[in-house]
Each structure stands twice: as structure tokens, then as C-alpha cells.
């Protein structure tokens, strides 16, 4: 192989531009769609790779009243960033750091009696107001959440702890499988049964929540008191039969990089040059997409032919469109602007748009557009 021409730039230039206006727009769209139900924006996994604190603030500006995360470390990150609005975290070890959670005013999603006992113990140690708990019911997904046979015992224990001032049950929630409408309807019915059983035990949960983006869009009956919006807040579609534009959503992330070196192409059809882009699978670019996805430069489209650990190789698809050192290329963004979308990358890599944006690594700088 011939050595490439060497670039003169001091450092490779890759940026994930996050359009916070798009986040505000998307969240506002769900606020309007939800017709009175509150909107919780889900910012777990560093806001699906977009940056948790920045997205959280934009989501609140867009009308969200709640933020949702998986684990407590993610909740603490929001508090450390100075965000004081309600936060719910729902994935815990049985003896997680609940005392710190209560001091930080985090609402806790709880799946079993052991967690309730740990939280009650933490509340007594910390003192102050009762712990705010959302009981999570497994209505069919088979992940966390209390199984139906446990509901009675869980509600009775929760009520006993309410009466002794240790906690209050602010919500009851579950998560859909999105297997099909019948399954989702069955899960909704089980949640209603659960809430009724809880009421009979004396609980008065103010927030019943079930729907995430897909159900919030498609199944109005699942919206209840609050919808949990993750992927939709980032402007991406969870549905197979509708894209962002169909749903009136704006993709928030645009991933750009720079051609840092050029080399003779391996393709002998025309005297082309291939370009080196300093983003690789170590940054979260899926190698499975090679040969099946384009990036866009000012002069046209370039085929991604190879993805290595810290770079990828692009080649022109037509004569006269050679990449040049210093050219800016867009890997994905809003497809209405003529670039590949996260959906395109997902199709090319046989996965879903969630994974494309979420796995983008920390070494790619995020740049926020207010």
C-alpha cells in the first residue's frame, strides 16, 4: 500500500452537533400530543448519547415536567448539573445508595419488597420528607417490575410504610413490549387492574404511566397521567412504518468529521482517491454498515468502504468527486437536508436508530446549538 498524503491539520475534527432547538420542538410536540398528560423526557445513557444535562434543560424548556433515567448515578449527574426538577430512576440494586437519592430528591421506581425496605431504612436514617416512590409492575414484559402474584404484598407493605411516614406512593407504572397492539392492550388492562388493587389497599398514586414514544404516538389510551418520551425527544422514530418527518420530529444529532488524509483508491474503475475520516468503531461507528452507507461532503456522496478502530475509509461513487484533505463530511443528520439519517445507518448495520446514536463514544466532541 502506498503511504497517504499527510494532512497538515493539528488534530482530527469530529463533532456531534446537538440541536437543542430540535429537542425543544420534539418535546413540545409530545406535550401537545399528550393532551393533558405530563411528559417525562428520558435522558438515560447520557441522553441516548446526546448529553444528559444539556438535553434535560432543553426538554424542560420544551414543556417536559419530569426527567427519567435508569440508575441513580445518572440521576445524580443531573442534580450535579444544577437541575432541580423531578427525576425518576428505576433500575437499582436492592441495597443501592438510597440515602443519597433521598437527599437529592430523586423519585425511585421500585420493583420489590426488598427495595421498599431499603428505601424505608434510608428514609429513617436521613429523616425529612417521606421517600417518593413509583411502584413498577411487570404487566408482561418479563424484565424488572413486580410480578402480578407479588402485587398484593407489595401494595400492603407500601401502604403500611406510607402510614408510618416513611414513603409516599406517587406513581404506579409499567413498560410495554410493543409486540403488537393486542399485547399492548393486554398490558394496559393489567396495569388498570394493578392500580385498582393498589387503591383497594389504600394507595392513591397520582401518576399512572405506561407509554413510551411508540405507544404515546399510536395508542392514546396508554397515555394515562404521564408519557415517558425517549427516542422521540431526539427526533427519531421508534416505528417501522414512519420516519422522523412523518411524525413531525427533527433529528437532534448531526455527526460531522473531516477528511484528514487521502490515498489512491483500491477501486480501479476510475482514478479515484479514497479519504480517511478519523472516526472508527472505537467511537461507535458500526463496521457492519461498510459498503452500505454514504457520507456527504460539499461535492457529493462518498461510500463508506471500511470501518477500523479509529478511522473509516470513504470512496467517491462517481468520477470527479474525489475527497480532498480538509473536506467536511456529514455521517448522519436530518435526512431532509440530503444527508444520511441515523435510520439509514441502523438499516445498514442491521440494528435500530437508538443504538446508532447511543453508542457514539465520549471522544467525539458534542457541540450544542442553542
Amino acid at each position: 500500500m502506498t503511504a497517504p498524503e499527510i494532512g497538515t491539520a493539528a488534530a482530527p475534527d469530529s463533532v456531534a452537533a446537538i440541536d437543542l432547538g430540535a429537542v425543544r420542538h420534539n418535546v413540545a410536540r409530545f406535550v401537545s400530543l399528550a393532551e393533558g398528560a405530563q411528559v417525562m423526557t428520558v435522558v438515560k445513557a447520557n441522553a441516548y448519547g446526546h448529553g444528559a444535562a444539556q438535553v434535560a434543560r432543553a426538554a424542560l424548556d420544551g414543556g417536559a415536567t419530569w426527567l427519567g433515567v435508569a440508575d441513580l448515578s445518572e440521576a445524580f449527574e443531573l442534580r450535579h448539573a444544577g437541575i432541580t426538577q423531578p427525576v425518576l430512576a428505576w433500575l437499582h440494586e436492592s441495597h443501592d445508595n438510597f440515602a443519597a437519592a433521598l437527599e437529592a430528591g430523586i423519585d425511585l421506581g421500585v420493583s420489590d419488597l426488598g427495595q421498599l425496605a431499603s428505601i424505608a431504612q434510608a428514609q429513617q436514617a436521613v429523616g425529612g420528607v417521606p421517600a417518593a416512590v413509583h411502584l413498577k409492575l411487570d404487566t408482561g414484559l418479563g424484565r424488572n417490575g413486580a410480578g402480578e402474584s407479588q402485587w398484593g404484598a407489595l401494595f400492603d407493605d407500601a401502604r403500611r410504610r406510607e402510614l408510618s411516614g416513611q414513603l409516599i406512593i406517587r406513581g404506579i407504572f409499567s413498560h410495554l413490549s410493543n409486540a403488537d397492539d393486542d399485547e399492548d392492550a393486554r398490558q394496559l388492562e393489567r396495569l388498570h387492574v394493578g392500580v385498582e388493587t393498589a387503591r383497594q389497599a389504600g394507595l392513591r398514586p397520582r401518576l399512572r404511566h405506561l407509554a413510551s414514544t411508540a405507544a404515546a404516538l399510536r395508542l392514546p389510551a396508554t397515555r394515562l397521567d404521564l408519557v415517558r418520551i425517549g427516542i422521540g425527544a431526539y427526533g427519531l422514530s421508534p416505528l417501522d412504518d414512519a420516519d422522523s418527518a412523518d411524525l413531525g420530529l427533527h433529528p437532534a444529532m448531526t455527526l460531522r468529521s473531516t477528511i484528514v488524509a487521502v490515498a489512491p483508491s483500491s477501486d480501479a474503475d476510475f482514478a479515484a482517491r479514497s479519504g480517511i475520516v478519523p472516526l472508527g468503531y472505537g467511537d461507535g461507528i458500526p463496521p457492519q454498515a461498510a459498503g452500505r452507507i454514504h457520507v456527504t461532503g460539499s461535492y457529493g456522496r462518498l461510500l463508506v468502504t471500511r470501518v477500523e478502530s479509529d478511522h473509516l475509509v470513504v470512496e467517491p461513487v462517481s468520477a470527479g468527486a474525489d475527497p480532498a484533505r480538509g473536506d467536511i463530511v456529514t455521517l448522519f443528520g436530518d435526512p431532509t437536508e440530503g444527508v444520511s439519517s441515523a435510520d439509514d445507518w441502523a438499516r445498514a448495520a442491521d440494528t435500530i436508530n437508538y443504538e446508532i446514536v447511543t453508542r457514539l463514544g465520549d471522544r467525539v466532541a458534542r457541540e450544542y446549538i442553542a
Partner: protein
Amino acid sequence: MSELDDTVDPTSLGRDAAIDLGAFRANVSILAARAVGGPLVIDMTADAYGHGLVRLARVAAESGADILSVRDEGDARSIADAGIGIDVRWWHTERFSIPPAGSGIAAFGFGMELTDGAPAGVVPVMTVSAPVLSVKRVPEGHGVSYGFVYRATKETTLALVPLGYADGIPRAATGSGRMAIHGRPYPIAGRIAMDQVVLDVGDAPVAPGDRAVAFGPGLEGEPTAAGWARDSGSTAGEILARIGRRVPRRYIDQEAAR
């Protein structure tokens, strides 16, 4: 140099990537012994394939590596700032051709041919694990995770493990990926989600707090990164490099402990 870590960081749900510096040292020594007549170049791109650049650069320099190939000038500066004296090359280094070929990822325990073919004696350096958060007994036919692509074929126990594709577990391994508990591998039931997977552990006496090992050296029943690569149409290098920020790296030295 900072000390080794005995205990798992509790702040990230007990997710853990244990990096065995002794194994890495031994691997580099094996490669150095084989690299007669030429410099030993170790590929340290992608944050040393997710292992942590500076910690491993020091061990590599002490164990017979001649040149480290890194991503960029920033990587080179990190190594120099840590006081590690070794020749470092990257994209903009004069006459350094694409790709920085030849080293493969044998130093991390895997072969040049992606899923196999590591030189004799090298062993995987990284072990990724997390505790079981909860277990649940479900009846035959119970669906698990999105789309219910998995249903229990008999009454069984499901164990929830907080490792998902945001942590680098490839979603493409849905239907084939496994994790081991007490040395026995169990299938992942249903779709791999962003933050979690569910293991079908049958009638095994698995309890919350038991550790589920996603991959490791493969010597005690656990899968390897090469196995995950086969299960997801990927490479061992990608599996290692994509382990995410929610999985704290912890440095151990099994050799020194012996």
C-alpha cells in the same frame, strides 16, 4: 502510578470491567519474544481497545513494546505527560502509513483474524460483568423483552442484569449472546435493551447479587469477546473497544497476586 483496585465500584450498579495488567504484561512479553528482527508495534488506538490508554501504555513500555500506534497527537501527549518514554506514532506522523498494520490485537488476547488465531499463550485482558439485580419465576410461554421474540419454553427463572447496548453489549447478539453465572453460561432471553438484558437461568439457584460475566478470558465457563464477535457479526476488537462509559474500568494484576 495509581494503585490496583480490589473492589468493584458500587456507584454504577456494580457494572465492572476488570483489566488484568498481569495478563497484558505477559501478552506483550510473548509478542516481544516473537518480534525478532523488527520493532514490536502495539496498536493502542480506541483508548487501547477500551482498556485505558495510559495505564496500558506504561505496562507495554515496560514489557518490551518498541512503538505504540495511537489515534492522534492528544493520545501521544497523554502518554508523554504520564512520563512514559516510548516511541509513539499516529495519523499525522511522518511516513506512517494506513493502517498501522501488523500488531493486531494480540496484546489484548485476540488474534489478527478478528475472532480467532491469537498467538499461543496470549490471554484476554478484560472481563466485563455486572450483578444480577433481580430474579423472577415465570410460567411456560411467558414473553420476555421487546417484541416478545423470546418466550419461555417451560417454567423458568429470569435474571435481570444491568448491561445493555448503551454499555456496549451488541444488540445484534440478540438470540445468540450468553452470560455466565457461577461458571455456567445462560442464554439472553429476548431483545438486548439499552440498559439491561434478561438471562434465562432455568432452575439454577441464581440470586440477586450473583455476578453475571458477559465476557472474560474464557477459562471459567464465561464467553469471550471473540464469542460475542461471532454472535453479532463483529470483531473482538470492536466488542472490547465499545464497552461504554457506564462500565467503570478497574485495574487488577492476577500475576502479581499469585
